[in-house]
């Protein structure tokens, strides 16, 4: 390869440019309603005064991200007006001229530069063993490839259309700063991230506890427990002021206008159902299936009288009641999530393992929110997969968990692209990514990372896909039970995700002998 010495990073632009070229080729592919959502937000922020942003409801896709994201869209809209002024008219619902599509797609590709920079910083912080000389087996190279060419990001951002690259870039940059010991910057970046998309509130406990324990308390007792006297007020106040000032900058104008309740109601709409139209592969998917199975069984065995026929997947966001098992309310899911993250967070309080322990806790919190959250989108699995990649290139066990989680999670994104023209792309890309992740991690850790059961499960994914796409349409049940394929995929994937979740949780609870570092 061209002049690749150990210190030359010339391969990095090659990787980054390559994936950017690929993204450009996807400009004209299918885009989902999220495209219209963002166009609508461009229009709202450009054409209306700030006081109307969170009151506007001409379109059903109201502004439901925090104010910083609205300001981000406002900035984009100034560039957008040079492409096509008509996209900025609020009444132009569903407007998608070629110039609009080009602008929106290019904006995602351009903001990905944040992600690329974050990946570079993560790669610089990765630890590696001495001895490996070959570039392709170096951990930072593999990490760069797994992150830059991540299948989930490509599919969700550049076909389905979202700005996850930009947001996850800020998240990864914050993580990288913590790994490098620059905690104030990391905290600042996370505060910004929270104000861009509030779903990251789920991982805020990890940040809070880590910074409190490892940054504000500067010294520990010899047995590892916290030395209360070493609380550094300066650091605490610095952290607090950073977070408060960022939030003030973001929410300030709306508090001044007395619109805070309205903004909050837009940000946290609990009217939607427990599950999305396509069930994210989490605990509630399994719960739903068990409930349905029990009700069918109960009817057959005449244990139950006629029950209301629960329609669980009809429409986009309908509510539904469970038949046999108790119904689940939003507060129940919140309690479940909080209970699930408690042990992980407590473990890094009692036994902090430095920045890497924090990263592990972050991934666990993200997975907990995915498993137990209310109205979870399957896209949220990316919040766990991407930070896990950093751990995967450093530890053998994490690599095994990553392979399970990433493959299952990526496959669960398949239903997002349901058009025939996208089928070859999504199949080819996932095969490429999965093959690469398996071979590169296997070479890095010199050995098999998964046991037979796990490999069988992953091969079963191929069987599920073939059955759902090829076999099932030929069967007569397709007309009467059309949702069975989605259900099958969701349930099968939730098994894999739950398994990875449990393994990851065990790894954080297990006491380690590694010396503590910050």
């Amino acid at each position, binding site marked *: *390869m*061209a002049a690749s010495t150990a210190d030359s990073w010339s391969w990095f632009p090659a990787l980054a440019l390559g994936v950017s*070229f690929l993204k450009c080729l996807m400009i004209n592919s299918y885009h989902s309603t999220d495209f219209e959502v963002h166009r609508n937000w461009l229009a709202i922020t450009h054409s209306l005064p700030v006081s109307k942003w969170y009151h506007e409801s001409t379109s059903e896709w109201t502004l439901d991200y925090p104010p910083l994201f609205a300001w981000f869209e406002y900035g984009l809209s100034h560039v957008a007006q040079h492409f096509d002024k008509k996209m900025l008219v609020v009444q132009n619902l569903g407007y998608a001229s070629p110039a609009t599509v080009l602008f929106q797609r290019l904006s995602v590709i351009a903001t990905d530069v944040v992600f690329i920079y974050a990946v570079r910083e993560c790669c610089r912080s990765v630890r590696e063993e001495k001895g490996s000389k070959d570039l392709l087996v170096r951990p930072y190279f593999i990490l760069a490839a797994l992150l830059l060419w991540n299948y989930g990001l490509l599919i969700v951002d550049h076909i389905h259309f979202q700005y996850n690259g930009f947001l996850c870039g800020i998240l990864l940059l914050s993580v990288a700063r913590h790994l490098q010991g620059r905690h104030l910057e990391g905290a600042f970046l996370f505060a910004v991230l929270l104000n861009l998309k509030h779903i990251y509130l789920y991982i805020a406990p990890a940040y809070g506890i880590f910074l409190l324990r490892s940054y504000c308390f500067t010294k520990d007792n010899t047995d590892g427990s916290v030395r209360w006297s070493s609380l550094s007020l300066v650091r605490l106040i610095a952290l607090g002021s950073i977070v408060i000032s960022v939030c003030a900058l973001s929410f300030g104008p709306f508090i001044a206008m007395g619109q805070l309740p309205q903004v909050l109601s837009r940000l946290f709409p609990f009217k939607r159902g427990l599950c999305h139209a396509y069930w994210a592969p989490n605990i509630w998917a399994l719960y739903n299936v068990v409930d349905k199975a029990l009700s069918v069984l109960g009817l057959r065995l005449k244990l139950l009288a006629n029950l209301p026929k629960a329609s669980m997947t009809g429409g986009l966001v309908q509510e539904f009641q469970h038949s046999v098992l108790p119904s689940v309310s939003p507060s129940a899911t919140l309690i479940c999530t909080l209970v699930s993250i408690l042990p992980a967070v407590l473990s890094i309080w009692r036994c902090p393992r430095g920045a890497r322990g924090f990263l592990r806790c972050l991934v666990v919190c993200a997975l907990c929110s995915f498993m137990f959250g209310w109205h979870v989108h399957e896209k949220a699995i990316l919040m766990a997969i991407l930070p896990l990649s950093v751990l995967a290139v450093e530890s053998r066990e994490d690599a095994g968990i990553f392979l399970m989680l990433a493959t299952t999670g990526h496959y669960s994104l398949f239903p997002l692209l349901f058009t025939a023209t996208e089928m070859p792309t999504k199949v080819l890309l996932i095969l490429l990514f999965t093959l690469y992740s398996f071979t590169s991690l296997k070479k890095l850790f010199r050995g098999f990372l998964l046991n037979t059961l796990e490999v069988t499960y992953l091969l079963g994914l191929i069987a599920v896909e073939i059955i759902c796409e090829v076999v099932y349409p030929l069967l007569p049940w397709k007309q009467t039970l059309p949702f069975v394929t989605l259900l099958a995929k969701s349930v099968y994937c939730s098994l894999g995700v739950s398994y990875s979740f449990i393994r990851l949780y065990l790894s954080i609870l297990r006491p380690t002998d590694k010396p503590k570092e910050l």
Partner: protein
Amino acid sequence: MLHRAGKPPMFGDYEAQRHWQEITYNLPVHEWYFNTTDNNLNYWGLDYPPLTAYHSLLCGHVASLINPDWVELHTSQGFESSAHKLFMRATVLIADLLMYVPAVVLYCFYLSEGSNRKKVCLVLCILLYPGLILIDYGHFQYNSISLGLALWGVLGLGLGWDMLGSLAFVLAVNYKQMELYHSLPFFCYLLGKCFKQGMAGRGLFLLVKIAVTVLVTFTLCWLPFLTDPGQVLQVLHRLFPVGRGLFEDKVANTWCSLNVLIKIKTILSTDTQLYLSLAATLLAALPSSIKLLTKPTLWQFKLALVNSSLAFFLFSFQVHEKSILLPALPVCLLLGDLPLPAVWFLQASTFSMLPLFLKDGLFVPYAVTSSAFVFYSVYLLSALEHSSEEELQLKSLSLLPFLSQSPGQFYLSVAAMAGLSFMSVALAPPARLPDLFPLLVSVFSFLHFLGLLLYFNVVQIAEPPSPRRKNPKKTE
């Protein structure tokens, strides 16, 4: 990485291919090339040799299994649906994967030099060549089959399996008649090899074996048409329409560029044009062929393929811009040996087809694949590092001093191509010269082709008669 999603709809050649499936599936063989009530030759009549027809028949059978509406006689004309588009694209992809990609991989691993990593990089760069990707998947054609078969022919000859190589090449010619551009080097190489082995013994035997292979293959391909000499004549008439003029539309060859200064198309009669182009083509191809005849090695063979097909492209009759793919294939094979001139040529060849891409709405894929190709081939093959005089094989000649500034000139040329590309799509031409941009594109490309023709001829002919030259030590 040969998948491409979301290309805009293609008319023209797409409908032609679908129509051929319809014709070959529904009509008997002896009607395929004739103008009948069921087969209107003016509506995308078959004008490729029989192997294309058999391939269309195969695809037509598969199509009718999936959805008979696609190949219904008469009623399926102009048919377009997303499932059908997926099917057609799948046929191109399958042909690519079965025919072209294995040939490229085998070539890079068995017939090129360097470390394993260098070979993999070479495979990637060859497969990334934008011209073939855009024409096959965007404009819609099956060039990967004919080029793949020709490449199998080169592989056969390179590995010493002369009969298999000739068989593959004859199949290539029977798939698309433009492969005849490559026929002169194949002929001269094999003949030269026979001469070298002595015409009194093994050489003669080899000659007879090859001749028999060629004849038998031709017979087998044309079997259904050999029953009636009228059939053969009609097919030949469809394949070689000599009624048309010296060139059509804007193409980056001599006659079109000459036409800018002197209107030769109107000055000379059609017959004179025919003879003029014949003479010019043979003259241009002669030096390289004779050199190959006297020294039949693989290196000479590759260079002769380039020189001959490029000469044919520049001086032949009724050349279409897509024919630049024929010299492009052998130049791809030179990517490992002479990276800088090869990349330069391949980029110029893609650029020369820009007007075609614009007509198909393929500007974004063109821009992306060209940039990716230039970037990756320069990066992976260290093209700009191997541009010293010695490595450009010009050691023995000092009469081309300007080439010592090659990297700078390469960048300048690529920048000019990028600039012209953007102007073509962003600006409207002045009213008096509506064809300004296609003309600029073709003249610019023509100058590149002419210069590179001279260069490749010099490299081939000036090679000293000592034992086969070794590649300069590559630093890995």
